[in-house]
């Protein structure tokens, strides 16, 4: 009798019987749908998935996925997921977090998780607002933003998730948008295959407290002018007719009309490129006259993976010294007998 192939999983296998309780129109729905489309395509048994979240609207995610799930406490999904990988290296662990969870209360943990390169997929739902607590400004809210807790405007300059990840030496950095389901699925596939920490920022619209935060990048009539899709090795061109291109200018990148430059001057995207290049790519967002946001995989490099090193040290100690002999350990070297 040949080994039975387990039946292929479908989207339905990852849905739970729980009512999804996000506000109607929330960007989280489309992200959930994209994950439920991606997971069955990964060829991984369902029991091997674990989703760990913190606190916030996005962190309700595990309740809506029929996998192992842990809704932890505010800011702490990263160390919980790290401990899980220390116990069970074979699990495919996804962390779902938000801009407050990951960059405010949990900023320290995100920094250390990324620099260690723990084998986790980290989805940061960035809506630039505190939704669950009803509308205070978040660490990614723009300077001057008026919210319930900043009636005179926020005086805190925002943290930029991708620049933060670059600073931590993240080995995989990507961005996608809740309104681009196909693109999200592509990015999730790439993230799933990465060894180490795969950091994905998702522009996510909060239609209740911060509606339209990303509308330049999502609306039909503007997005082509403002979104720069990345593909490794391909020239940085965008616009409906590829009418824009990106070129080097000193230490920066600059958007120019494609017609004005030769093909040889157009920068080609390099996922293994220098950090300064990737940083410059994010600075295209800062042009007040023509902000441009890059989406896709910005960085994907190979580096030692924390949990693999952890388990390798244990295995090598067992190989070298043999499995621990408890009696010998307790006895030690200096004993006497009565």
């Amino acid at each position: 009798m040949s080994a039975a192939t387990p039946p292929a999983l479908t989207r339905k296998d990852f849905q739970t019987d729980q009512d999804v309780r996000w506000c109607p129109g929330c960007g989280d729905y489309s992200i959930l749908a994209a994950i439920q489309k991606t997971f069955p395509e990964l060829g991984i048994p369902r029991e091997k998935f674990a989703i760990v979240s913190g606190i916030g609207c996005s962190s309700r995610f595990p309740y809506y996925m029929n996998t192992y799930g842990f809704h932890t406490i505010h800011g702490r999904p990263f160390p919980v997921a790290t401990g899980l990988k220390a116990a069970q290296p074979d699990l495919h662990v996804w962390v779902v977090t938000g801009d407050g969870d990951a960059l405010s209360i949990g900023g320290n943990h995100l920094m250390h998780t990324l620099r260690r390169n723990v084998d986790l997929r980290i989805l940061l739902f960035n809506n630039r607002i505190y939704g669950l607590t009803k509308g205070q400004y978040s660490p990614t809210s723009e300077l001057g933003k008026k919210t319930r807790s900043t009636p005179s405007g926020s005086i805190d300059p925002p943290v930029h998730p991708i620049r933060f990840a670059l600073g931590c030496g993240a080995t995989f950095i990507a961005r996608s948008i809740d309104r681009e389901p196909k693109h999200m699925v592509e990015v999730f596939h790439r993230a799933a295959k990465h060894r180490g920490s795969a950091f994905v920022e998702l522009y996510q619209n909060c239609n209740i407290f911060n509606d339209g935060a990303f509308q330049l990048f999502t609306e039909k009539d503007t997005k082509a002018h403002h979104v720069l899709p990345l593909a490794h090795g391909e020239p940085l061109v965008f616009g409906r007719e590829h009418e824009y291109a990106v070129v080097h200018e000193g230490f920066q990148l600059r958007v120019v009309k494609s017609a004005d430059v030769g093909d040889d001057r157009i920068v080609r995207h390099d996922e293994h490129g220098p950090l300064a290049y990737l940083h410059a790519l994010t600075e295209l967002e800062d042009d007040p006259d023509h902000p441009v946001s890059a989406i896709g995989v910005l960085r994907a490099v190979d580096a030692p993976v924390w949990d693999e090193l952890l388990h390798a040290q244990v295995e090598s100690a067992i190989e070298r010294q043999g499995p621990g002999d408890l009696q010998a350990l307790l006895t030690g070297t200096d004993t006497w007998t009565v």
Partner: protein
Amino acid sequence: MDLPKRGALPSPESQTMHDIRREPAPPEIRDSLIIRFAGDSGDGMQLTGSRFTETAALAGNDVATFPDFPAEIRAPAGTIAGVSGFQLHFAGRDITTPGDRPDVLVAMNPAALRKNLADLPAGATIMVDDGQFTARNLQRAGFPGNPLEDGTLDQWKVIPVPLAKLASDATEEIAELTPRERERTRNFFALGLTFWMYTHSPEPTAAWIRRKFGEDSALGRANLQALQKGYDYGVTTEVFAHRVEVPRAELPQGTWRNITGNLATAYGFAAAAQLAERPLVFGSYPITPASDILHTLSRLKNFNVRTIQAEDEIAAICAAIGAAWGGAIGITSSSGPGIALKGEAMGLALMVELPLIVINVQRGGPSTGLPTKTEQSDLLQAIHGRHGESPMAVLAPSGPGDAFEMAIEAVRIATKYMTPVLFLSDGYIANSSEPWQIPDVSTLPSLAVPTAAEGEEPFLPYARDPDTLARPWATPGTPGLEHRVGGLEKADGTGHISYDPANHEHMVALREDKIRRIAQDIPPLEVHGETDADTLVIGWGSTRGAIHGACERLRRSGHRIAHAHLRHLNPLPANTGETLARYRRVLVPELNRGQLSRILRSEFLVPAVSLSQVRGLPFRVTELAERIAHALEDA
């Protein structure tokens, strides 16, 4: 280990390093002796004290130690603030404390002398490095004149020995070392000399130096040479003709070693994980006085121990929680300040009902407080220090060796009841040492608990064992058991989020009941001494030795008194209330402001009287005995 017989001269063929040139007078036999080594933080006093302790233990003495050092790594040399001390009590009988006042003080400089003088009873012996009594050092120590010359020390027996000079001379041939480096071997010179004075062999320390420094290294040779010459100095110098021998103690039959509380704690948890047949994942952030547990476990990788030095205290406990969810024995360790930071995560662990061990090696608080000093002031924090109704099991070892047993007990309770357990050690248990009878590993209990497996019915993550109320331990990776856990209130059984008022009340009561049921599964409280006396002295944790000693002392002077000691603090043993009710007077000595006494009063309505001390130091037996005697005088 093959040791030369106590007090006997080695034969000429002996491979030991003795070089005996004359027949010494027979030593005076003493029942017990207390030595305190004191010097600058950099003088190696902890090491010197530890080596003497090991040697006395190997020679069959009962030993109890009290290391006492400043929080500063290197306070300015020669100042009172920088003095580090190590007191040890070795005896030919069963002892339970490091002793109150030293019979012998070895002082490496004037500051060490001045800081410890008040503790010395009249007639005690003081060995000082008189070469260090320079005008500058005397001024730093705050002596107006030279106490070696002005009569300050008349009530004590002073032995001046120029330790630094003798050590330097002894190691002159080791050309690789600078004169300054050679002088730094003076702690080994002093150790060799004290071995001679108290008829102990230098050989175990010589073997230790060879292991630690290597026989051929310059430092190894210098230390060996200083140790030997110190011993020889005793042999050849008339002033040390009077020697003292403390005979072997009558310890129970078995194989013994010396062990500190932190080491016993680390070994206990490593053993418990083996007995549970699960990996140990240890998340910790360095903090005094708990860090040695992390250091020890990080070297036990071949025991399938995985240590994580986390970015902070919160990450450390969260990693342990994640590991527990993943089926490992998840443990975190800290001291008071770190435990405060872990509070929210402890609440998560008890809400998701996962086994988790939280080790608190208590120190003087609040805030940064007294990092290197001992205190028992986190008891109420351990029992109540989380938001919401959040009961957790709390245990406390009563001494260094007991930490091993209680570590295993902590894992037993955590995994059997699926609950976090708080393990309350303290700085005194952590760093002090005592002889420990090495357990036969084959007699240790199995702690294996089943991991849930796929069944016919839909899996309920919050189904309950009818006896323990434990929920199943279902680990990610197991087919068919996919489920969600989280910090939100949940419906029993399914684990679905529930805001239903009646459900919340039910769940709060259930989590409380689960902890209460542990009381039926732990040993009853035992009473020692005159169990029918009308006074019970009851304590918990590291004060066991001092309370026992004080009660013994009072009984010798005719008082009738009973002693009980709690190792389980939440829940308390089932017979605690009826035990307390049998006594007219209940006295509760504690190194805090009366935390256990409050619990006993509120739980059992007994007029418990607190005997409180918060000086960062353990109780002294004589002082505690006086306070108990004083309390007995009150009606």
